[in-house]
Every structure is written in structure tokens, then in C-alpha cells.
């Protein structure tokens, strides 16, 4: 089979057996506008070049269903975010936000029940109104979305806090920076590192070029479709060879706030990110896209979570 694939001009995957269907992404497609070139081109970025002074941002969240009042689930949530700054290869915390709270559909509670929950000593966050018809899975899903929003808020809070102190420092964020509403003078060194590729912005030959990028190469910069979110400049970067794995193996998407600098610095920023391949974050399943400092922020937050 493998020989036949190669003979047909294909590339090998890992051949891992699977028995469950992947759920389809909620937003599989979005639009893109080419910025750096008229069509997607592949640009080598080697050699990797470590960036000594940089900061890294990540957040965590968790929730648990503490009980029900009637059919209303009471969800206990925890969200935290931190910035660790690297100097001389050592990471030190610079900004931390953490919150523990209850996410409940407040409209559906009697005043007495609400008072009782408030006396628990945790902040109460409203899940918001819903349809009259109850669905326990959807109700919990809506509460979990509140937890996720609180985490995003915490991430933006530590980002602002850090950039207020050090606006000229490079800050690498785990995930998209589209919702980071920092002023341009503070966000000019903000970098988003996106590991998931649920939404595809390119199509046709552009997509082909992006998804078959060789290791150590990037695509040209394009502007991500905005929708409700702010526009960002972005490009794909391959950290590890994808052959014999899958198309998304080692593939990250880098985001910058729009501007000429984003294009001019794309190769340099790519080199820095390429250097973050070491240390390896294995055995984490995301090791091909998860860089070590981001993983360390997560580890730091998890350790804090235990003590919280």
C-alpha cells in the first residue's frame, strides 16, 4: 500500500488506526486576503535563532458540576492566566490572574437559592438566558462556555498588565490574538501562536502550499478573515516534518497585529519560533506544535491551581 501511495505521487501518513469519527469543526472555513504576495508562496526560514528575552502567555480553565437546583446546573469554574518572562534561559512569572467562581443561570433561581449560593463565598457569573426547553447537556455546555470566557478575560488581563509594564517586550501568546484589544503601541510585539487548525482560511493551491509546507519553512503573510473579530496578519510555519505523520503535524499559524512590521519581521519571528522546538514538550500529545515555554506557563498555572 505504502509503495503504491508513493508511486502515485502521494506522501505517507503515520497510518494510525482510529475507530471514532472526529466531530466536525464548528467554523471550518473563513476567508483570507493575501498581504505579502499575490498568492501563497513558501519561504525558507532556517536557521533557527533563539530569542533570549521574551515572554509567554497561556491560560487554563476547569469546571465541575457541583449540583442542581431544580434542573439548573451549578457549575464551579476555575480560570487562570499567566505571563512568564524568559531571561538568561530562565522563566519567571510576571503577571498572574486567577479566579474561582460559580456559573449558574441566575434568572431561573429563586431569590432564596441565589442568596444561598452567594453565601458560598465565590463570585457568581450568570450563564445567561436560554430556551424554555431544558437540555442537561446543553445547559452544562453553556455554563462551560462561561468558564472559557472567564479564562479568555484572564488572559487578556495579564496581557494588558504585562504590556503596560513592558510594552517593548516580545509576548508570545498561546492561541489567537484577534480578540486582544491592545493599542497598537503596546501590541506591536504581540505574537499569537495557534496550534489548532479547525478553521481554514486558504483554499486551492494556497491551501495546498500551506498544508504541505516543508519543515523550517513559512507561507507568505495573509490577513485573516475578520467576521466579528479583529483582523490579524498571519502565516503558517512548519516546525517538524509532516511526512509519515499527517498534514497538520508540526504546523502552527503565527498571528501579528496588522502592519508593515508584521510582514517585514515574519521571517525573523519564524526563526525565533523555530528555535523553540527545543526543549521538546514530549510526551505531551501536542509536542509537535506546543513550545516549551508555553507548556511551562501551563505547568505553572496547574501547580498554582493545586494550591488555590
Amino acid at each position, binding site marked *: 500500500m505504502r509503495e503504491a501511495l508513493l508511486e502515485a505521487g502521494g506522501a505517507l501518513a503515520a497510518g494510525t488506526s482510529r475507530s471514532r469519527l472526529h466531530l466536525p469543526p464548528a467554523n471550518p472555513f473563513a476567508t483570507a486576503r493575501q498581504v505579502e504576495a499575490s498568492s501563497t508562496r513558501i519561504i525558507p526560514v532556517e536557521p533557527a535563532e*533563539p530569542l533570549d528575552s521574551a515572554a509567554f502567555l497561556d491560560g487554563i480553565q476547569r469546571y465541575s458540576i457541583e449540583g442542581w437546583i431544580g434542573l439548573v446546573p451549578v457549575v464551579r469554574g476555575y480560570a487562570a492566566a499567566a505571563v512568564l518572562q524568559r531571561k538568561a*534561559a*530562565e522563566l519567571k512569572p510576571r503577571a498572574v490572574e486567577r479566579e474561582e467562581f460559580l456559573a449558574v443561570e441566575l434568572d431561573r433561581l429563586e431569590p432564596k437559592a441565589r442568596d444561598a449560593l452567594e453565601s458560598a463565598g465565590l463570585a457568581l457569573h450568570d450563564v445567561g438566558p436560554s430556551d424554555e426547553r431544558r437540555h442537561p447537556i446543553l445547559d452544562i455546555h453553556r455554563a462551560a462556555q462561561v468558564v472559557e470566557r472567564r479564562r479568555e478575560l484572564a488572559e487578556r488581563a495579564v496581557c494588558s498588565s504585562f504590556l503596560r509594564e513592558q510594552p517593548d517586550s516580545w509576548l508570545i501568546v498561546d492561541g489567537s490574538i484577534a480578540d486582544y484589544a491592545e493599542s497598537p503601541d503596546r501590541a506591536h510585539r504581540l505574537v499569537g501562536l495557534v496550534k489548532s487548525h479547525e478553521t481554514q482560511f486558504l483554499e486551492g493551491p494556497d491551501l495546498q502550499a500551506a498544508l504541505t509546507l516543508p519543515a523550517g519553512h513559512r507561507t507568505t503573510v495573509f490577513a485573516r478573515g475578520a467576521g466579528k473579530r479583529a483582523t490579524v496578519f498571519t502565516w503558517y510555519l512548519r516546525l517538524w516534518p509532516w511526512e509519515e505523520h499527517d498534514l497538520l503535524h508540526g504546523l502552527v499559524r503565527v498571528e501579528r497585529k496588522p502592519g508593515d512590521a508584521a510582514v517585514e519581521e515574519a521571517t525573523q519571528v519564524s526563526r525565533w519560533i523555530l528555535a523553540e522546538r*527545543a526543549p*521538546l514538550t*514530549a*510526551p505531551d500529545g501536542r509536542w509537535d506544535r506546543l513550545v516549551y515555554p508555553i507548556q511551562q506557563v501551563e505547568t505553572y498555572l496547574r501547580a498554582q491551581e493545586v494550591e488555590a
Partner: protein
Amino acid sequence: MSAGPPVGRVVATEALPAGPHQFHFWTATDTTLGIGAIIRVDAADRSVYGVVVDGSAYSDLASPLHDVIAAEGDPAGAGAPTRRTEIRLWTAAVLRQEPEEPVQPVPLADVFAATEADVEMALRIDGYARSEPPTALPVGAYRAAGLRAPVSLDADFLLGPESAHLNISGVSGLATKTSAVQFLLGSIFQHFPEHKGTVAAVCFNVKGPDLCFLDQPADLSHEDLELHRAIGVEAKPFERVSYYAPFKPDGVNLNTLRSHPDLLGSVRPLVWGLREVLAFHEVLLNRDDIDAKADALLDFLTDRVVEKEFRDDWGNTHEVKSFADLDQLFRSIFNGLEQTGRGDSWRTHHVATIRKVRNRLLNISTRCKGLVTDDGTVSDLPFGEFEDRAIYVIDIAGMDQLGQDLVFTRVVSTLRERLERQDLGVDHVIVFVDELNKYAPADGPDTYVRKMLLDISERGRYLGLVLFSAQQFRSQVHRRVVGNAGTTVYGRMDMDELATPGYQVLSPATKIKLATLPKGELMVRHPHFTQPVFVRFPRPAMLNGPEGLKRFPPSADVPFEEAIVRQLAAMDRRASPSRIKDVIAGRREEDVRRALLVTRRVRPDDAVAYFTAALGPVVRSQEIDSTRPATTPLRSVEDPYES
């Protein structure tokens, strides 16, 4: 109570729990703590003192392969921009808990580097350093994490009666065993509490010039002087040191490396006669020679003949005080048997046994020439007049094994007898012997020397007889001898030795530290210390052997006449060499030696005058009447033992 910020925190997991005797804690990677450091764990209701016995470091790297992948197989490639999170995880053994009861696991609390007060508490030194009266004897300084704190031993447990004896192990040249003992002896002499009585030391110099210059000051560095001050021991050489050495076979040159003209006068000869030696015939005579019959004859001689007026069966009276007298007695017996034809036995002893014993005994003065004399002259240690805080060094380095065994056995036995009778002159005697593996080996025959060392190690503490012993390899020494040492000290150790079963209680890290200990650092075990503790001691304030030899090079052996002149001149600076030569001209050498010994023993103001008097008038030879009948020769006497 906390003298500084915490340096670590106790951690416990199911796999690595904190127990009442051992716990784990982590520190920053740039910590000043290390193996042997003393720490304190402070919880609300409990303080725990511990000593670091092991350490490990690891990162979050799950597999070495991940590092290879990250470096793309090239170790020389660009390094990772972020250093992996690393841990310094330490294992500590509990030294003390406060309160002591109930005994509980160590609390998961902050860890502090020990202060001076903590060191005292951790090692229970407070119990004897702050008691009334105190019994602390400084042994060195604990040094870690920027702290230097004195460490003391308890006199009751070092010199008895609670426990006693000290044993020190370590490789030659690097373990500084002799220096450690010198420093400790100095500390004992300065700090031995008055209420415990008097103390002296007898040191056997068994190799080279090790102990030959204990009274000579060394040039100490500023650091050594500082360390002396910190420990509380004054940096000065021993004030009262007496040296003893046997003669060389020539009978006039002392068998010692302390033979420089400036020092020779302070070395006294060690010379013994028949009385001193006979009681220890077991040491000198081969076990195969001494069967029951020979033993019976030896007992007879010891009990009934030596130092007594003895009348033989032929009407002759003998007063046997020397080997020469003994030989005279034997000859008389053989003559009597020959002349009277009374058969082949005398007083139930077969003539062959008598000949064998005679041969073996008379051979002793030949085998131990220089130490044992034929003529009964004796120069011995001042048993009965030992002085407080004095050291008696017996230099047996130049003797063969047999002579060393004899000196060692007789001196220690006499010390023991005197202490039992309480007429030695002091209440406690420390006997220092190096190369213990030679005298009390783990394997080999059960010698008289080994039996005596066992006896001291097991019962000496009740008498005040304390053994300070040293050897390279503890595993090669009889287990009961080293096992009875209440205090054990280790210098730099050999890794092969550390692999023997006797060191199983030590952690691998402690063993590594022992194998790489710098000079001047020791690991000490003492009854009050629940775990071994590393201490540093300064270079002692007296010259060591090699330095002593450099400053006081030994003199070459000199001819008989010149040796007598030098030795008398060393006693009396006014002595004229020409006068001495005149006095000894034409005199028999044994007469001169005897007179010199007596003079040395008395040490008169006018040594030459005393020597001349001791030598006595010249006895002129006389012509013998040639017509007088000569002695009738004996019939042939077969003596299979005659050499």
C-alpha cells in the same frame, strides 16, 4: 528561631513519604546546601533537625530520546532557548526532633539552613557543652551554607566511663589520620574537665617520623589559626612530650629519626632486661615452640627463679636478674646434670625442654638487640610517675615486627596493671596506635597482641585505658576492636573499602563524599550524633613528620666513642668531648653503655661526673699463674638447639 529565609521545603509523595527518620525536601538549584549539611524544619509545634545524606537533580525531560530529537541529533547544535525546569531534591536523615516525644513523621514545612545554635541542638551537644560541669571536647568545625560552627565530643563517651575509644580510618597520605589525632589530643589536653581527673597519652610511633616532632611548633596559615580560634583550641604544640626509643643493634645510636643533635637529648633510651621481657614470652616465642612442657618451665622460671634467690640442686645460689644470669643458671644446671649423671631431667623438666627454652630465651636478646640487653640494665617509661597532660611517644618505627609487638604488649599491659592498681600517676591514659590492622587483624592467628587489644577495647573504659587507633582499612581490623570504639572517624576513604559490608549504612552520596574528602575534613560518628557528621579541623600546631625531618634532619650513625660524646653533650652542654673520650678510653663497651644508661635515667646536673662515677674505677688486668690447673672440660653434651 529562623535566622534567615527558608532554603527549601519538605515534600512527600506516596513513593517518597516523609518518615520519622528520613524525609525529602527541595531547594533552588543554586543552593549552598550539600551532602552533610545540617538543616532545620520548622513547623508550628515541632522542629526537626536533619543532615543531608543524599541528593538528586532531574528535569521534566520524560525520555533522553526527547533531548536527542530536540537537538536534532547534534549535541553541539544551538542550545535550547529555555532551560528545562529542574529540581534539586535532597534526602535528609533526622538527627533530632524537638519535642522528642511522640516520635512523628517530619512535618511538610519550610527548611532552613542550620545556625550555630541549631548545630548544637541537632547533635545534642547542648546536653554536655552546657551541662554543669561541661564535658565537651572540641573536635572540629561544621562548615556548610556559609556557617562555621564548633562541634564537640562528650568526654564521658570518648574517654569513658559511658563509652570510650576512638578509631579512625582512611587512605594513607590523604586522610590526615595522624594530624586528626594530634589535634584531638591537643583539644583533650586543653579541655578535659578537671572533675574527671588527670589524663596522659602514650603514642606508638610505628612508621617514619610521624610523631617525632610533637613538641615543635609548626608555621600555621591564617586560615588554620582562624579555625583554631573558631573551634576553641589554642594553637600550640604539646608542652610535655617525652620520647623513648630503643637503641640500634650497636647499642649506642638510638633507633629513631628524632636524632638531630638539637633534639637527641630529649629522647630517652628504651632498654629492657630479663624481668621486663619474661612475662611476655608468649609474644616473642613461636606458638609451635611453646608446648605445655616448655610453658611449665617458663612459669617455673618466672615464679621461682627470676628476681629471687634461687638455690639449684648442687648447692649453688643464683640471683637471676639478667639474661646473663639466666644463662649462668642454665649452664649450672647442665653442668650439674653432667657431673652427677642424674639422667635426663631436672625438677621434672626434661633436659631437651630445658635446652629448648634456654635457646629460645637467650635468643631474645639477639633478636631484639637494642631493646633487650643481656646485662640487666633497664631504661623504661616512668610508670607510676605519669604526668597530667603529658605525652609519652615510643618510637618503634625502626624495629621489626617482633620488637614492635613486644614493646606494644608490655607497655599496654603495664599501663593496664597500673591503672587497675591506680598507681600509674594519672587517671586516664590514651594509647594511640597506628596501623591497627597489623596488631589486631580481622583474619590470621589469635595473637597475644590481638587478645590484649580486644581486652582493652571491651574493658578499658572502666579502667581509664582508652584506645585511639588508626588504620587504612577498617574492614581488615578485628570487628570487636573497631566495634567497641564509641567514636569513629573517617578521612578520605578508598572506594573498594567503602564497598565492603561495614559501610552499608552510609548512603551512596555520603560514600562518594567520603571518597573525595579534602585533607582536613573528617566524618565523625559519636554516640550523641544519630547520624555521621562532617567536620573540618585545622592543621595541628605541631610539626608533622616530613616537615620535622626537613627542619631537623636526622644525624647519621656515629662510631661508638662519638655517640657517647654526643649523648653526654646533649645532656650537659658543658661536657668536654676530649674529657669524655679520656674517660671511656680502654673501657669495655658494655660497661660504658650501662654507665650511660644510668646517667640518662638520673639526668644529673654534671652528667660527665656522674657518668664517670657510674663507670667506676678501671680494673687492671692481672697475670694468671700458669701453673694453676685449668677447668676440666665437660664430656660431650649434645645440644640439638645450639645454633
